[in-house]
């Protein structure tokens, strides 16, 4: 590809992006009122804890010690766990997006600038870990991988706490959720 082609492709993408962003900006006023979902108040730690145990080597070792063990069983287990991990990841992403949506709406109506700052930080952390886990999930069907979803859950919790502290006191700080 020449510089000319790269620049043309880049300009085309920018033009499409600008068009879409401008269209969305014009339709922002038509947005419905905010009704926070249950994820804003529910504890998430317990719900997502099993994620970390999905690819634990102990399960594989236990399976290997069983009578009639075959490599097919090992592979089947990995595939099943992979499916479960995908479901968990999908769910946590949905929860995070919902929470982020509430933070965005709240950030524009509160005077507290820390909420938008916290939301951006957590978004970067969350999606960084999320995509890394997706890749590990893909590799999980071939090799043993370590799945550490604690950062994913903690970034969801930080956002929850930030949201709660602003709802309780719109002018207050977010010390508890700075994480």
């Amino acid at each position: 590809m020449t510089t000319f082609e790269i620049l043309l492709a880049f300009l085309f993408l920018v033009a499409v992006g600008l068009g879409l962003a401008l269209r969305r900006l014009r339709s922002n006023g038509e947005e419905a009122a905010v009704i926070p979902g249950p994820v804003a108040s529910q504890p998430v730690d317990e719900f997502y804890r099993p994620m970390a145990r999905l690819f634990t080597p102990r399960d594989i070792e236990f399976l290997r010690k069983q009578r009639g063990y075959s490599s097919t069983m090992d592979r089947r287990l990995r595939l099943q766990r992979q499916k479960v991990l995908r479901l968990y990841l999908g769910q946590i992403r949905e929860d995070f997006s919902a929470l982020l949506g509430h933070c965005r709406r709240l950030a524009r109506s509160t005077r507290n600038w820390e909420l938008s700052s916290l939301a951006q930080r957590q978004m970067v952390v969350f999606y960084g870990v999320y995509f890394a886990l997706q890749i590990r999930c893909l590799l999980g069907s071939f090799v043993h991988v370590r799945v550490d979803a604690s950062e994913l859950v903690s970034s969801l919790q930080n956002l929850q706490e930030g949201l709660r502290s602003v709802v309780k006191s719109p002018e207050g700080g977010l010390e508890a959720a700075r994480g």
Partner: protein
Amino acid sequence: MEISDWIWAAVGAVELAWAARLWQLVLVRSYPFLTSYLVFSAVHSIVSFATYNAWGQYSVAYGRFWIITQPILWVMLFCVVIEAYNHMLKGYEGLQRLGQWGSHIALGTVALIVLAMIVLDPPVDGASSPWAIFWIRQERSVYLALTVICLVLVSVGAYYGLVVSRNVATVFAVFGLLFLSHAGLSVFRDHLGAEFRLIKYTVAPILYILWVIAGAFAFTRIGEERLADETAAAWGDASGTTGQLTRQLESVNQLLLRVLRS
């Protein structure tokens, strides 16, 4: 007079028309950078036209004038975009820090694109006026950077669901299209060379005139009002049925007030 002469004159005229419209709508204080840019650019067009006609395109006088004034115009364009961005964030105090980040990202984008273009472009040997060539090449980088800045800043507003006035949306749309068309034409000019230069110098001002006319027409006094004064509604109230009902009542009140005023 040739067609190109008329185009030069028309550019200055439409810019002055938009500036006059701002003055007529008492919006000069709200948009000081936009007004300054329009007036400066109109004067620039007229002086460029006079210098070009008196001494020619390749004269030292015209070259010096272009090298000195063009960067000023680019800086002013950047200020116009930042001004619109500040208008977009007005009333959203919770997003002020984000606003600062947006400005920093915008500045970083300019530096990055200009640097990338310098690296990508092959060096020109034996150029009679290396500064002129440098600035001509920077024209493409600057418009590319300004287009990306526009995209980043509008995306911030779209992402946070900010409610902006029609005038602010007009500034973004008009200048976004302006930057995009200039960047596109500059890319083609740099690739196709002298053959395309003549087309560029005719098409670019015509498109510019069209965008400026659209901007002048779209700017209105009512266009300063936001689509819905969302910032006034407290989030806590909006979290339930009470909030929704309050909003509905507010919009009915606004409608009644408008009817009474008219």
